[in-house]
């Protein structure tokens, strides 16, 4: 457990667009892994590390995020004096203006609290860990800022933040989406520093006219601060595009990713839905799939991820599919390499075939 530390989760990333999936919601509110939203991982990592004061910053499309987070009780963050705070841009505005201003809200929040350290986490990486080792490393290096990275920098999709590091681990260069990466060290958007330093850096950024938080922008101060890179050796899934999302989900069905992401010692908390158990009919056939509560399965489901309360009709065939909650797949449908958003209805006999490298996406609430 790390003590005396607060957290900030940047719930969206303006550099990442996922079409129909992020149209109605912030990036971190995109459903993932059958019963979670992407933000659950960053939130649970903090809670499981013992962090009790967590702010979530978001610049738009708050509704699904606010609905999901609620009072914070699912993460045991519905607290009297600490807990979960949503920081929409308006929070500091005292006049009747509609213009968003992320930074001033964040600064005033973090100026007022008392924790010594802050962990800032972006929303686009899914990993399941605690920050105990990061903190030990930070103290050991006597670092100003510690940045978590892993070694997939050569192959990862943009946005990529490549760290150039000395042998001792100190960051000596930072490259955004470089054509020829100098290393494979790719920031995971998780950073640890003193809270006061964070407020100071943000204040300076604001005084230079910045109004938005980019997960890695403070890393660019490497000539001024002692910034160290900390390598995360577990599995991290980067959600940078629809394709990356599709691949990450199907990868999470198999070992060792499944255990790395879902089955760690520390649980991944999420909002409770109180669905009934999943019911398998006498004739169904399910293979290599994750199935959530409330599902009712009559057809065949292979290498797929079914969220809560999905029904799969008689003789329907699903292969390599991701089906969000409350969607109904009618009898006899044939779906392959398809992502279907919430509350869709796929009518009897419909055939939707995408490619593994180009999945078909059906937007929220569609009737096909």
């Amino acid at each position, binding site marked *: 457990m790390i003590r005396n530390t607060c957290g900030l989760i940047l719930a969206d990333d303006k550099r990442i667009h996922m079409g129909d999936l992020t149209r109605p919601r912030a990036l971190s509110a995109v459903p993932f892994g059958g019963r979670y939203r992407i933000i659950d991982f960053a939130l649970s990592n903090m809670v499981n590390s013992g962090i009790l004061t967590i702010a979530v910053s978001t610049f738009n499309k708050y509704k699904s995020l606010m609905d999901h987070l609620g009072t914070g009780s699912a993460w045991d963050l519905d607290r009297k004096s600490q807990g979960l705070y949503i920081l929409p841009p308006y929070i500091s505005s005292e006049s009747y203006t509609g213009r968003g201003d992320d930074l001033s809200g964040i600064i005033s929040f973090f100026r007022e609290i008392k924790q010594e350290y802050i962990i800032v986490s972006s929303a686009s990486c899914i990993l399941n860990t605690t920050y105990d080792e990061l903190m030990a490393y930070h103290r050991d290096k006597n670092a100003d800022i510690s940045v978590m990275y892993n070694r997939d920098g050569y192959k990862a999709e943009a946005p990529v933040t490549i760290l150039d590091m000395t042998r001792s681990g100190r960051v000596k260069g930072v490259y955004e989406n470089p054509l020829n990466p100098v290393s494979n060290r790719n920031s995971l958007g998780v950073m640890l520093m003193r809270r006061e330093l964070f407020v100071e850096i943000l204040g300076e950024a604001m005084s230079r006219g910045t109004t938005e938080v980019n997960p890695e922008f403070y890393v660019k101060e490497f000539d001024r601060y002692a910034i160290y890179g900390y390598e995360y050796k577990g599995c991290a899934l980067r959600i940078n595009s629809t394709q990356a999302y599709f691949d990450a989900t199907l990868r999470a069905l198999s070992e060792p990713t499944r255990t790395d992401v879902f089955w760690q010692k520390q649980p991944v908390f999420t909002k409770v839905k*109180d669905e*009934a158990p*999943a019911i*398998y009919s006498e004739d169904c056939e399910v293979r*290599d799939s994750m*199935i*959530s509560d409330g599902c009712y399965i009559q057809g065949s489901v292979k290498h797929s991820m079914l969220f809560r309360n999905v029904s799969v009709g008689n003789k329907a065939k699903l292969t390599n599919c991701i089906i969000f909650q409350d969607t109904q797949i009618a009898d006899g449908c044939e779906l392959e390499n398809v992502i279907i958003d919430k509350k869709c209805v796929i009518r009897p006999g419909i055939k939707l075939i995408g490619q593994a490298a180009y999945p078909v996406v059906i937007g929220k609430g569609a009737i096909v």
Partner: protein
Amino acid sequence: MKKELIAMILAGGQGSRLGALTDTMAKPAVPYGSRYRIIDFPLSNCVNSGIDTVGVLTQYQPLALNTYVGNGHPWDLDRNNGGAFILPPYQHSKGSDWYKNTANAIYQNIPFIDNFDPDYVLILSGDHIYKMNYAKLLEYHIAKGADATIAVYEVTKEEARRFGIMTSDENGRIVKFEEKPAKPESTQASMGIYMFNWPLLKKELAEDEADAASSHDFGKNVIPKLLAEGRQVFSYPFQGYWKDVGTIESLWESNMDIIDRPRDIDLQDDSWRIYSRNPVKPAHYIAPGAKVRGSALTDGCVIYGSVHHSILSHSVVVEAGAVVEDSVLMPGVVVRRGACLKKVIVGMETIIGENDQIGGEENKEHPYYNKKICSESITLINGGLILKPDISVPGNCMVSMAQTVAESDQIIERCENIPAV
């Protein structure tokens, strides 16, 4: 703070007819139906009916219930005014008493109830599976101008001999009550759900307490006395699914009803959710070689083997080559590779050894054969056990640490504590 109606759930009983399952937990805490515990049903019914203050009367092994109910949050009963309260017996300045029986348990908690100054008190059992809108029961109670209202369920003439049977006049007023009548006059069985005007009940409980001849039971003493006094006692006919899960047979049956009679029990019903404490586990995973049919599963299960016509609670693991049929596996059960279960109820966290053959044909000579608790060839394996590999247990057996068997017949490798939640 005043409440119109509060509910008191009688969750005290040891539930000895469930055998070893209730060695370490009160009956209402027993897992049921893949996602639930028995007490989820009365608790969810209360909340869905708009009742926000619920006393849970408990004295036998309350730890599992206490930690399961906890702050009441899963049922929205973590209220500042009201909420869920676990009510054990206690010492007072003039002595101390365990709860002697149902009526005495309520009697001992009069100060608790008076705290909320309710107009009505609803008395519930902690061991029935059903969905009922108690707000409608209260409306009926008020409309009838009743002193007490008893929910009744239509049973067959045959079954009637096992229940408390009410005979009502054309207005629904109860004129006669018989406990397990040999020749039932009616087929309306008491469901053990009583709505009382609190001032009257309080008076009746005090009188019952003072009566040395009374056994302080609602069914045996309080209700007959009300009828004898000519009080306005009405029956409230309930339609829908209802099952007392007080025996191994009825517990198994009621579990199977989830897959055999899904429309009756209707757990999918959005307008009447049954809430439960969530285990915080990932969605369940069905491996490439697995075969799952006609079953109910929930979060945290990992299935490599074959599961047919069975109810699996959270975090059950069925290894490759294992076969589970007609069975009820409670949270955390592990079925090792090659094992085969047929019509078995397995308690929480038990590990079935490799190639174990459990259930099936009966063998009355078998050291674990049990005719008191088990019936219908159902075999019961208690929670917390680690079974040896390659053993075989026939149908209608009960396996627990309490059994004394010859060293050579011992099938239990060791026993571990079951965590309360």
